[in-house]
């Protein structure tokens, strides 16, 4: 049994909250630079340049790359041999989120009630997904999620007869209908299988993979590349203003499912594909 204090959790969360907002991953920046070499639209190219310049300014000046610093979504892999001491685990995370959004001068975008719509003022509560795993470590990943791209996400309970072609059509249609709304170039997370909520989680978690990381199963790795090519042929382009760079990558995750079902989820991620992790 290893002890981890709640204060340690709070401090770690505060730091990754701030780092995620300002420091775009090298994989995303490299993908944006690679896109510049193939983008056919002059407007699209100008937009890609602005996005790359923006990422550099954000990193150099520790400024949020986007004013939508997101809903704080955290994934925790909690070792079963860890004993958390000093207080409430989820409150420790929320306190880290609270401090990170305050000290990092990040925007508070969370409303206490979806209908009343009054801002909680500190960007809490966070969304916390905890998984118990073997070991005595705790891995915390933050993936702050902007509203614009999250709004262009969808779950569809397809028929088994729709098959793989139906899945592809749904993904492509979702991207086309999203147009410029989710800030393309996007990264598309696709969850196939499981249940209604499971496929949404698969799609969301797939977005934690690095740009260019392929599914270990060749069939799904090929599907990712096929969808990426087809998405980039839609013509949506950077910011939806036309072009050949609509997505930087597609990630697919799958799960066993019921004989009656073919659940599919598309979680759309903007180019500000932020995530940071810490292991305690």
């Amino acid at each position, binding site marked *: 049994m290893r002890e981890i204090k709640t204060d340690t959790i709070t401090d770690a969360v505060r730091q990754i909250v701030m780092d995620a907002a300002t420091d775009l991953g090298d994989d995303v920046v490299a993908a944006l630079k690679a896109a510049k070499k193939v983008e*056919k*639209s*002059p*407007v*699209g*190219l*100008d*937009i890609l340049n*602005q*996005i790359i*310049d*923006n990422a550099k*300014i*954000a990193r150099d*000046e520790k*400024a*949020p*790359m*986007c*004013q*939508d*610093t997101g809903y704080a979504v955290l994934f925790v892999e909690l070792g079963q041999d860890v004993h958390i001491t000093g207080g409430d685990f989820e409150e420790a995370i929320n306190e880290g989120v609270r401090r990170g959004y305050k000290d990092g*001068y*990040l*925007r*508070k*975008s969370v409303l206490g009630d979806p209908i009343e*719509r009054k*801002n909680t*003022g500190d960007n809490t509560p966070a969304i916390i997904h905890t998984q118990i795993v073997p070991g005595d470590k705790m891995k915390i990943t933050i993936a702050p999620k*902007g*509203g*614009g791209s999250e*709004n262009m996400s969808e779950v569809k309970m397809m028929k088994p007869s729709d098959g793989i072609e139906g899945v592809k059509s749904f993904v492509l249609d979702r991207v086309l209908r999203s*147009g*410029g*709304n*989710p*800030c393309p170039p996007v990264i598309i997370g696709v969850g196939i299988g499981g249940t209604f909520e499971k496929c949404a989680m698969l799609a969301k978690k797939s977005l934690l993979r690095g740009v260019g990381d392929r599914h270990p199963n060749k069939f799904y790795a090929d599907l990712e590349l096929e969808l990426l090519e087809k998405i980039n*042929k*839609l*013509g*949506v*382009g950077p*910011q*939806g*203003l*036309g*072009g*050949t760079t609509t997505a930087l990558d597609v990630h697919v995750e799958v799960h066993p499912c019921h004989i009656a079902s073919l659940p599919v989820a598309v979680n759309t991620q*903007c*180019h*500000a594909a932020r995530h940071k992790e810490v292991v305690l």
Partner: protein
Amino acid sequence: MSEKKIITTPLTDETVEDLKIGDNVLITGTIYTARDAAHKRLVELIDKGAELPFDVKGQIIYFAGPTPPKPGQVIGSAGPTTSYRMNAYTPKLIGAGQKGMIGKGEMSAEVVEAMKKQKAVYFAAVGGAGALISKSITAAEVIAYDDLGAEAIRKLTVKDFPAIVALDCRGGNLFKEGIAKYGQK
């Protein structure tokens, strides 16, 4: 890149008519931020025939909610938010004299009709480039709805604010044109 058109606010019919989709513009002058919650309140005032907290005639509304400024900054990161959420409100504001919108993503046919009728223009700024865009904002002041926090109405002074004409006053639509031009079967 094509030459950039320099435009100043408030906008006139002539300025709006001169703009066509795909034009790169640099906006200088005063613009006002408003998002969903502020738009709702503005349109409620219009519906009641009450006075708005600022005169929208000839003005540009920027769909944006910035991050808080760090000490010494006039504003934090301040990129555009998605525009379609304002579809329900913008025609009424155009009816009250608004001449321009800055946002990201497409707006509805109803907005385009109002734009054609009243001569207004819609600019796309680069979503997710909030740190870069904030460099063109030289002053910011909350002028209404402070209780809304990031969603309050801010009067911004901008210099060479970069944007692209995405919908023009003749019904030109860069989103549709872009897909037609670059989409491959």
